[in-house]
């Protein structure tokens, strides 16, 4: 299979590591070779968390600058910060709900307006899918299910050969009973927001 390089970017606590791991599990169960790379440790303390999933005929576990096929951003300013990963053919899927860093509170730098961020993204890459992931997660009944919303949008984008059913199987088998319904609903809401 032609390699697909996906970059997940988020802020500590948003759950992008789980999203990339579940995607890796799904690829494996669908018979697609996949490697997932993660950053653990100090970088996770409220900082930026990046993970990557590389699928198909490729053995490198990370994505270089300009080489992401898909960028999935869990926070709009972080999506923008990760733009160097993109080229003009990249598909960007971004949450639109800001989570300003504490540096803004203590007057170091200002947070970019979301519509300006989206316009910039749109002017640079092939396609931008923007959704208020937090609103959909809340609608699903679990504010922590943002990662499921984003996975739903990713699968619906048609950028990777993973079906809705396969992805849901993995979510079902790896989610605790108490969160299963809301997680699946969050996935569906993310999925539908793209169609």
């Amino acid at each position, binding site marked *: 299979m032609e390699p697909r390089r996906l970059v997940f970017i988020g802020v500590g606590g948003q759950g992008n590591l789980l999203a990339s791991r579940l995607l890796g599990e799904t690829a494996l169960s669908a018979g697609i070779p996949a490697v997932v790379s993660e950053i653990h440790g100090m970088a996770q*303390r409220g900082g930026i968390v990046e993970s990557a999933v590389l699928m198909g005929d490729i053995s490198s576990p990370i994505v270089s*600058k300009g080489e992401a096929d898909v960028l999935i951003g869990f926070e709009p300013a972080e999506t923008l910060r990760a733009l160097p990963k993109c080229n*003009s053919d990249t598909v960007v899927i971004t949450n639109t709900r800001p989570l300003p860093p504490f540096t803004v509170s203590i007057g170091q730098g200002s947070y970019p307006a979301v519509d300006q961020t989206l316009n910039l993204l749109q002017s640079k890459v092939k396609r931008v899918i923007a959704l208020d992931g937090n609103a959909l997660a809340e609608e699903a009944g679990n504010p922590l299910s943002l990662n499921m919303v984003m996975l739903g949008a990713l699968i619906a984008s048609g950028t990777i050969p993973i079906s809705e059913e396969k992805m849901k199987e993995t979510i079902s088998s790896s989610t605790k009973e108490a969160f299963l319904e809301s997680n699946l609903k969050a996935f569906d809401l993310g999925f539908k927001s793209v169609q």
Partner: protein
Amino acid sequence: MHKLLTNETGKEMLLLGNEAIARGALEAGVSFATCYPGTPSSEIPEQFFNISKETDLYFEYSTNEKVAMEVGAAAAISGLRTMVTMKHVGLNVAADPLMTLAYTGVKGGMVVINADDPYLFSSQNEQDNRYYARLSGLPMLEPTNVQEMKDVVVAAFELSEELELPVIVRTTTRLNHIRGAVKLGELKPVKTKTTFEKNPFHFVCVPAVSRNLHKLLIEKYDRAMEKSEKWPYNEIIGNGKWGIVSNGVSFNYVSDAVSDLGIADKVSILKVGFSWPLPKELCGRFLRQVEKVLVVEELEPVMENDLKAIAQEKGIAIPIRGKGVEGLTRLFEYDPRMVRNAVAKYFDVEFSPTEIVDLSDLPELPGRPPNLCAGCPHRATYYAVKEVYGPDAINPTDIGCYTLGLLPPISMADLVICMGSSVSSSCGFSQATEQKVVSFIGDSTFFHSGITGLINAVHNNHKFTLVILDNGTTAMTGHQPHPGVNTTPLGVELTRISLEDLVRGCGVKDVHVVKPFKIKKTIEAVKAAMEYDGVSVIISQELCPLFARATGQARKSKPFYVNHNKCKNHRICVDKLACPAMYLDGDRVEINETLCIGCSVCAQICPENAILPVKE
């Protein structure tokens, strides 16, 4: 049952590199494991800790890496298969036993996992520990992907027993923290107890014994070389005239570059999996079949220099280059694009790299450095100490989450070099300068290597205040226990050592135990400590809120909010604490109720008493 205990041979699982290492050890029948945690190695012992609760595996979080190495050495010398894991700088701490353990050798297989950290994702330096193999004379193996991380560990145990030497398996952060498919092998039966056979003229390293042992080690080197020549993970791939040599994660970048550039028929790749001793004959064969060589290795030019020496010895005069070729530096991690560019440049292959989008009109983005969590007790302690000592005191600090006290507005970190250095460097600062010295160390780090420095401080009549930030866990590496931890919530019963007793036992007369969320009392204690003429210690006790939540010990406090009728917008809360639960809405401070854990520190320092607990 722990997922790594599954006995389905041939099953494919998506495993983290560190899980694959643990699985490899289990497949080799490991019965004894020790470690001190450290990113990027920490998930290996995490598996062992959980597995030891349901099997006969003996596992311990040792006090530090030297202790872990010595505990493990005795088990291996007695005949048990043993694994000892640590990060690269941990091997500095364990280097003393390791160097002479190479002389005594082992009876049961002993595998030392050494995790290097190119790019310093979570470390104080990016030293290249391949030099340790050369320094100690011990064999070193380097896997290139997750499957190999498991398989190489299994083979490493066999190798260790054949050579009767500890074997070092070197990984890098990228390998430890990638997930990939792993085909499982069979779990071997475990030998859990053994009998030590006395042999003092082999194991008691006095000069007369060690002279013989050094000779033995050098003989073993020759046997290790024979193993390296036939090692299945050393491999020449292809038979083209362009030679590329690579190891570890970089091997993947090289393979992808060769395929992206469509030059597979022109290239020979030497993949090095047994990196010390480097297989001389295999390297010679490789050097003879190519016209020029590019060495792709992260960090130091270790293989590059070795290959140049081998070429000289064998009279092969071809260009061998690595560092300095098109972006290949001694710094940081490599990546696929960088390696593709270097290969194309070195061998003069035409290709057009993907263009990165135009970034010239991107707005400047606010930084998002890592930060102490909302309700982190370190923030409260730092606040109290700064109120008393002010900004001019020297603040030696140490390694842990609290190193983040470096960042504004706390800005209380002046020197960090290694675990435990806060205490000993305070001795030097207080003697060499007239400045006040107040230093910080975490509970786990204090047990690891702060104790000897503190004894030194008391004995040599130094004068400073040491603050021990006791959050009841080893927080930054993922909440491992240490000797001062109540381990009952973790499902094991280990003996807890009182930090206060220990500090008093070191001879410290002025000891204050404080609860940092009680700001006034903490400030009083800091004042008293500052007045004391000698070494004073403040033990600041409050559980890490993440650990407390994960183990069902969370405080049941209401979150706080800002009452805008009272708030006069001094912003002392934000300017002095910068808690991530606070944010600005327009020009007013607000508190995110989901993030706030109700530590009440901001409420205590607000001059208008405008920060109040949320009502039901």
